[in-house]
């Protein structure tokens, strides 16, 4: 197999890691909505922290993107 073809396939496979991160990010907000549905008064308090959860989970998606780019261009 040519190296270029292998790189393309490898990069495509590496992006599969984002599936988990996508589910995780969705979890952050789905739990936020459930929480404020049960207790609307906690909206601001929880709302300040969801961004931390989002960034830490999104980082995993970015790690997978970095691996894909490393395979493609490294």
């Amino acid at each position: 197999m040519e190296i270029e073809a292998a790189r393309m396939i490898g990069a495509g496979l590496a992006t599969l890691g984002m599936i988990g991160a996508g589910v995780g990010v969705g979890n952050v907000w789905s739990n936020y909505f459930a929480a404020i549905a049960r207790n609307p008064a906690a909206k601001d308090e929880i709302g300040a922290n969801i961004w931390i959860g989002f960034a830490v989970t999104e980082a995993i998606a970015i790690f997978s993107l970095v691996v894909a780019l490393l395979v493609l261009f490294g």
Partner: protein
Amino acid sequence: MAEGAQNGSFPVDPLHQFEVQRLVTVNVGGLDLSFTNSALWMVISVAAITGFMMLATSSRSLVPGRLQSISEILYEMIANMVRQNVGTEGRAYFPFIFSLFLFILFGNLLGMVPIGFTFTSHLVVTFFMAIVIFITVTIIGFVRHGAGFLRLFFPEGAPLWTAVILVPIELISYLSRPVSLSLRLFANMMAGHLLMKVFAGFTLLMGLAGVVPLAALVGITAYEFLVAVLQAYIFTILTCVYLNDAINLH
């Protein structure tokens, strides 16, 4: 389909924007200490922060105007962050946390300016920041608690036999902190700017139909502004959390 391309090659090189270029070549005994474009933008970032804070706090009115409000909001946000995450003992570290937050924030935002260079998009820069924070926090932990700092790796109340599995896991998780901290900021910045450059290339490549990637580029740029601010905030709050682990041992 692809109009305007001479030999089918992509019109822009997405990786060229990350190239470190020497502006002033300085060679000290074999060591390359050149003043690079990365260093230039770090200096610009520090100058912008200093200029902004000095200008904003020059009018010491009790009821702040708009500019003074911005600096007061920034101060209060970071002060609250330090107080909530580190407690009252963290006040000594507030100047460092504030400087760290503004340095990364201005670095990220100045990179969004069209001619700007994002110095946080280099792993060596973010890794050095993260490893300095990691070593400092570890030293603070050992200075405060002595050898008792190692109790961090063995949560209280866990049965003794779990220590065999738990301590190596906690140790590895602790040692991976600078890696994840630096990699998160670096990857977000690099991936964002890479994506914007690639979409800009698509816009150039597609001629009149380039309006579609241009619309996507507008959305991506807005998202990148959010990511710039958010990643600076995340880096800072995780530093506060690690500091809290060292000072208060969970």
